[in-house]
């Protein structure tokens, strides 16, 4: 019995790969969906957006690339959808070179689909990408028009109606930074939110979330961590505005495969340890190439 358990420690890694693939693919095919419960750290962001009066100015940033789209894009789209539904003015920008297509996708999935009548330049503006990492944020703190002299289409920001009230970063009512690394949420806190006094909310990948907890709740009013964080925001949005149930459940749906994969990984850890103890704590077989 013990030797049988010990043999489990030598399980072919191809079986592990196959099981993890099945754990993701089957729930996707079956459209397995679990309920999402919004935790306070995400609810804070929702409540802040909810409490802003109409025409408030929200800066939404998309500082990530295609590799983290499954985690970050639902956050960007849910927050954008919420802001536009509330009648807030949305300023979207990125300091990542890979960010512009993310904003384009958001425009396609949120604005063209749910808010086809809103006017770019009056209710929302795509300020595009600017190089300079945290230098852009620092520059925007002093003079926003210098940091973002044109929008994504090349129009001078001075000619955009909704930019008239924006001179410095402190003219915004809220900054929601969605990111997956450097420069990202941390830099928006340090160079944007802290000096200007504008509340900052964040949305990051699951691996980055623990690094941002030190800023919560003093400097960061809320944080969406990974796909779960995105699903929690979507859950709050759909609960408050059921009309978005069709369009804003991307992360909630993807939590099905993630939940099953998490359970499988937990099983792997437990089985791996049982095999380890059954083998009498022999030298661990790290990186066995089988």
């Amino acid at each position, binding site marked *: 019995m013990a030797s049988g358990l010990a043999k489990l420690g030598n399980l072919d890694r191809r079986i592990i790969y196959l099981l993890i693939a099945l754990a993701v693919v089957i729930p996707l095919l079956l459209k397995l969906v679990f309920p999402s419960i919004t935790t306070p750290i995400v609810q804070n962001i929702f409540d802040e957006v909810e409490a802003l009066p109409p025409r408030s100015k929200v800066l939404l940033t998309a500082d990530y690339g295609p590799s983290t789209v499954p985690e970050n894009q639902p956050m960007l789209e849910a927050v954008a959808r919420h802001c536009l539904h509330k009648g807030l003015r949305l300023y979207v920008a990125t300091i990542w070179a890979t960010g512009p297509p993310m904003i384009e996708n958001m425009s396609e999935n949120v604005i063209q689909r749910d808010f086809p009548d809103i006017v770019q330049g009056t209710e929302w503006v795509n300020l595009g990408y600017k190089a300079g990492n945290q230098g852009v944020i*620092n520059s925007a703190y*002093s*003079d926003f028009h210098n940091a973002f002299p044109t929008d994504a289409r090349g129009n001078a920001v001075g000619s955009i109606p909704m930019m008239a009230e924006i001179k410095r970063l402190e003219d915004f009512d809220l900054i929601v930074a969605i990111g997956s690394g450097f420069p990202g949420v941390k830099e928006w806190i340090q160079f944007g939110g802290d000096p200007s006094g504008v509340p900052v909310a964040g949305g990051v990948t699951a691996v980055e979330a623990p690094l941002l907890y030190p800023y919560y709740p003093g400097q960061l009013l809320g944080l969406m961590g990974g796909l779960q964080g995105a699903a929690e925001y979507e859950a709050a949005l759909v609960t408050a505005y059921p009309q978005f149930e069709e369009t804003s459940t991307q992360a909630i749906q993807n939590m099905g495969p993630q939940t099953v994969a998490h359970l499988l990984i937990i099983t792997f850890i437990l089985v791996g340890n049982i095999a380890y103890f059954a083998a009498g704590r022999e030298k661990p077989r790290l990186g066995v190439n089988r």
Partner: protein
Amino acid sequence: MFFRIWLPVIVTSIVGIVLVTALYVPHDPFGKLNGDFSEYFNIIAAFAFILGAGNLFKIHLDKIYRKTKGWLFSVVTVAGFLITLVAGLLKLGNTGGWEGDVVQPGSWFAIAYDSMFTPLQATMFSILAFFVASASYRAFRAKNTEATLLLAAALIILLGRTFVGYWMTAWMPDSLEFLTIPALSNWIMSVVNQAGQRAILIGIGLGVISTSLKVILGIERSYLGGE
């Protein structure tokens, strides 16, 4: 000597002192200088792309010329870079012409981004799931007290990040709510993790202050090269 060593040291010192002062005295002239210096930084950062491209060419063309191991990958890198650069700069296939957005759907640049860059990046990131699963099976062992604590924390966080965590301990009475998996997961993240992260951040901050002071005072000059 003056232009190579002392002029950069003087410029660095002035910029450093002004930026530090501007943090505490945001009024002019420090406020304005802070804004100006940030703009200079942005301009220099844009030039860094040219340097980066030059460096990429230098390294990979050298590999191709010498036909060192994996030189064919360098050919792919250089070709990919040039094709993307030309497609983006000349806005090839852009229905909006020169006026159109560089990422306009249908343009060659957008096709390269959507059909090559995006799936490649997504694939690289997705492969992590398989490695994590394999590593969790083979390496995550309760070998000693520290490893066991780490293992327990990982299991709680993994469960706490899904609905299963709620479901497993939903039966617990309100008086024991703090023992539910979501509550434990939240406690690990917002107390244990936060304390550790803050300690690390404060340590890093002190290190940054120390190094910055040395740079501003001209004691640390290794960034100038040589010496």
